[in-house]
C-alpha cells in the first residue's frame, strides 16, 4: 500500500499490520504521522483533556546482579556506592509526596539478592498500615521474575502475595525491546526474556491489576524490532485489556557500558506517533519529558500523546545516564494549557481526579528533582538485618558490623 492509502486506512479506523506500520514509520512525512496520531488521540480523548499524575519515582535499591549494559544506575553487590533505602526513608518520601498532593509511589529498584520477598511484603504492609489510601505502583516485570527466582515460586503466587501485602499496580519498566535478539545484546535477556516479561503482565492482568508498558529504543535494535515490540504489546492487550498506557523513551547513553549516542528528537516524535497508530487498543500514550526535555515533551501532545506522565519529584535512573530535566506540577500544567488542552490530575488508572493542586492551595515550586539519598549518606537501614543475607558481600558486611 502507498503511504497515502495506509493513512486513509488508519483514518477509517483500520488496523495496521507489520508491513504497513513499517512503511509509515520509515517513509511517512513526520507531519503526516503527527496528524494521524492526533486524529486517533482526538477519537479516544474528544474532551481535549491531557492528564498527569503527582507521584514520586523511588528506587529502593541500586544494587543489581542483572548488569544490563545500557544501565548507568546500578552498582554491583558489595559496591561502596550501593544502597538500600530504609523503611523510614521511604515513609519520609511518602510524607513529602503527600505534601505536594501526590497519592502514589512508583517504586522500582535493582535485583538485589539480599532483599527477599518478605522484605517487599513487610515494606508494602507497613506502607499500607501507615497510609491506607496511598497507592503502590511497584516492581516491574523483571523484578517480579527476580523474586520468583529468589523464592522459587511461580509468577502468579508472587503476584498474589505482593497484592496481598499492598501492591496496587505494576509499572511497565524493564521491557526495553521485547525481542530476544536485542535482549541478548543488551545483556538483559537473563533478567527476563521477552516472553517472561509479557507473562508477568498477563498474570498481573488476570489477577485484576492494571499495568503500563514501556519501550526503550535507540540501542542496537532495528526499526522492525521496535515495531515487533509494539505488536507484541498489542497482542497481549487484545488478550487481556490490562494495559493502561504506553510510554516510549530513548536510550540515555552517558556513563553506560554500551555507550553510543542518543536517538534524536524527531525520531522520538516519529516513534511516539507510530506507537499511537499501532497500539490502537491502548487508551493512553505518555510523553517522556524526562528523556526529551520539557519542550519536546510538550510537542509530544501534537504527535499523539495525551498524558504528560508524572511530576516525579525524584529521579535517579535517567539522571545517572546524563539527562536531568525537571517539571513540577505548575510547569506541567502550563505546558498542557499552552498547547491548547485541559489539564487534569489523574490516578494510576488514568481516571481524572480534578483540577491542579496548586490552583487550590500554595505549593512550593520544584526546580530540581530530588535523588534517592544524599551523596555522603552511607547508613544501612536497620530492618535489613531481619532478612537472611544471600550474597557473600552482604554476609561479610554484616559480620564486620557485628564485631565492631
Amino acid at each position: 500500500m502507498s503511504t497515502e492509502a495506509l493513512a486513509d486506512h488508519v483514518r477509517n479506523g483500520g488496523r495496521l499490520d507489520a508491513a504497513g506500520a513499517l512503511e509509515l514509520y520509515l517513509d511517512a512525512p513526520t507531519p503526516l504521522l503527527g496528524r494521524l496520531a492526533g486524529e486517533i488521540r482526538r477519537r479516544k480523548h474528544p474532551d481535549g483533556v491531557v492528564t498527569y499524575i503527582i507521584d514520586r519515582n523511588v528506587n529502593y535499591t541500586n544494587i543489581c546482579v542483572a548488569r544490563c549494559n545500557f544501565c548507568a544506575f546500578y552498582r554491583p553487590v558489595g559496591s561502596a556506592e550501593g544502597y538500600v533505602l530504609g523503611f523510614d526513608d521511604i515513609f519520609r518520601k511518602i510524607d513529602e509526596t503527600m505534601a505536594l498532593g501526590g497519592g502514589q509511589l512508583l517504586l522500582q529498584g535493582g535485583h538485589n539478592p539480599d532483599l527477599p520477598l518478605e522484605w517487599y511484603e513487610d515494606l508494602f504492609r507497613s506502607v499500607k498500615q501507615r497510609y491506607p489510601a496511598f497507592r503502590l505502583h511497584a516492581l516491574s516485570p523483571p523484578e517480579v521474575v527476580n523474586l520468583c527466582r529468589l523464592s522459587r515460586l511461580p509468577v502468579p503466587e508472587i503476584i498474589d502475595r505482593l497484592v496481598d501485602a499492598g501492591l496496587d499496580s505494576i509499572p511497565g519498566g524493564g521491557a526495553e525491546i521485547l525481542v530476544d535478539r536485542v535482549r541478548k545484546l543488551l545483556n538483559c535477556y537473563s533478567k527476563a526474556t521477552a516472553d517472561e516479561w509479557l507473562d508477568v503482565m498477563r498474570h498481573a492482568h488476570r489477577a485484576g491489576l492494571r499495568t503500563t508498558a514501556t519501550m526503550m529504543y535507540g540501542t542496537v535494535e532495528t526499526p522492525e524490532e521496535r515495531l515487533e515490540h509494539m505488536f507484541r504489546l498489542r497482542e497481549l492487550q487484545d488478550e487481556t485489556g490490562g494495559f493502561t498506557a504506553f510510554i516510549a523513551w530513548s536510550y540515555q547513553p552517558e556513563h553506560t557500558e554500551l555507550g553510543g549516542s542518543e536517538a534524536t528528537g524527531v525520531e522520538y516524535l516519529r516513534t511516539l506517533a507510530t506507537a499511537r497508530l499501532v497500539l490502537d487498543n491502548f487508551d493512553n500514550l505518555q510523553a517522556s519529558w524526562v528523556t526529551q526535555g520539557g519542550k519536546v515533551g510538550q510537542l509530544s501532545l501534537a504527535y499523539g500523546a495525551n498524558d504528560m506522565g508524572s511530576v516525579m519529584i525524584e529521579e535517579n535512573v535517567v539522571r545517572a545516564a546524563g539527562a536531568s530535566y525537571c517539571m513540577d506540577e505548575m510547569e506541567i500544567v502550563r505546558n498542557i494549557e499552552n498547547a491548547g488542552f485541559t489539564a487534569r490530575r489523574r490516578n494510576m488508572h488514568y481516571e481524572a481526579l480534578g483540577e491542579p493542586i496548586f490552583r487550590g492551595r500554595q505549593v512550593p515550586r520544584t526546580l530540581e528533582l530530588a535523588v534517592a539519598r544524599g551523596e555522603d549518606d552511607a547508613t544501612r537501614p536497620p530492618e535489613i538485618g531481619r532478612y537472611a543475607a544471600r550474597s557473600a558481600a552482604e554476609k561479610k558486611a554484616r559480620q564486620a558490623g557485628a564485631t565492631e
Partner: protein
Amino acid sequence: MEDDQRGVESVSALDGLAERVTAGATITEADARLMLASHDLIAIGVMGDAVRRRLHGARTTFVRVFEIHVNAPPAGRPLHVSAGEFRIIGRPASFEAAVKAVGAASAIASGVPVTGFSLIDLQGVASESGQRLDAVCSALRSAGLAAVAEVPVDLAGDAAADAVNAARSAGLAVTRLTVHALPDARAIEPAVRARDLQLATGGFRVFAPLPRTMSVTEPSSGYDDVKQVAMARLLAANIESIQVDWALYGPKLAQVALTTGADDVDNVAAQESGALGTRRSSLEEIRGNIRAAGLEPIERNAVFECGWNGAGGGAPAE
C-alpha cells in the same frame, strides 16, 4: 484563557493561510498573529517548512563557534578547537577593552573570521568613549574584527538602520539579527522589526527569532518556540536564513526547528571534550541530527563560506 476551544485546533482558521503560503504569498502581520494564537502545531510547522524548502531545499548550514569572553581572552589557542567562527561575547567595559579582546582573538584564530559584540553594545562603547560609531568600528576592523556578531532587534532603537550602515561603512559585516528577550511568546514585533530593518538596510543573512535570554521559572514552551520559528520564516521572508542556537536550545528542540522553518544552526561546539571518549564529537552529533531529520548538513564559517576547511586542523566540510 486561551482563545481557541480547548483541544480543538483552529484548523479552519489556518486553512486559508496555508493555501496562500503554498501558493507563494507573503503573509501579513494579522496572519502572523493568527499563527501564534493557533494550537495547530503541525499545520504551522508545515507552512514554515514549505517556505524553508522553497528557499533552501534540504540544505542545512551550521557553524562551529568558539566563544571568547571579552574580559577573559585566552593567552594561546586552546587545544582541540575546530571552528568556523571565533566570537567575542559579553559587553566590553571600554573601547580599549574591546580593541584588546579583538586583538587577542585574532592572534589565536589562525585566519578563522573573528566576530564579536552586539551592535547595541558598540553604540554604548562609542558614546561612552566620545567617538562616532564608525570610528569605533574602524578601529575594531583594524584590530582584526570581521563582523559584528549580532543586532538584537528588540533592543535596537529607531536609529538602528543608521547604526548598521555606519558599521558597514567601516568595513564590518553586519549579517545576523537576534532577539534578546521575548516577554510575550505571542509577540510578532521582533519578526516585524527584523523584516523592516532588512527592508531598510538589506544585507542581513540570518534572523534568529528565539530569544537569547529566558525565564528560569517559566521558560518558553516547545509550542512557543516552534511557532515563533515558523512565523518568523513566513513573515521575514526577505531574510535568507532562519537560525536556531544549538547550545542554547539543545539538539532536540533545534532539530525540530529545522523541520519547521529554520535552515541554519548557530553555536555548535568548537571544542571537543577529550574526557568523554564514548561521546560523539559535536561534528558527528550535528550532522547526525540534521540527517536524521531528512536534511543535508553543510558546514559554513562566520562569513557564510561553505566548504571551508576548518582552520587549525578541523575536519573538511561536506
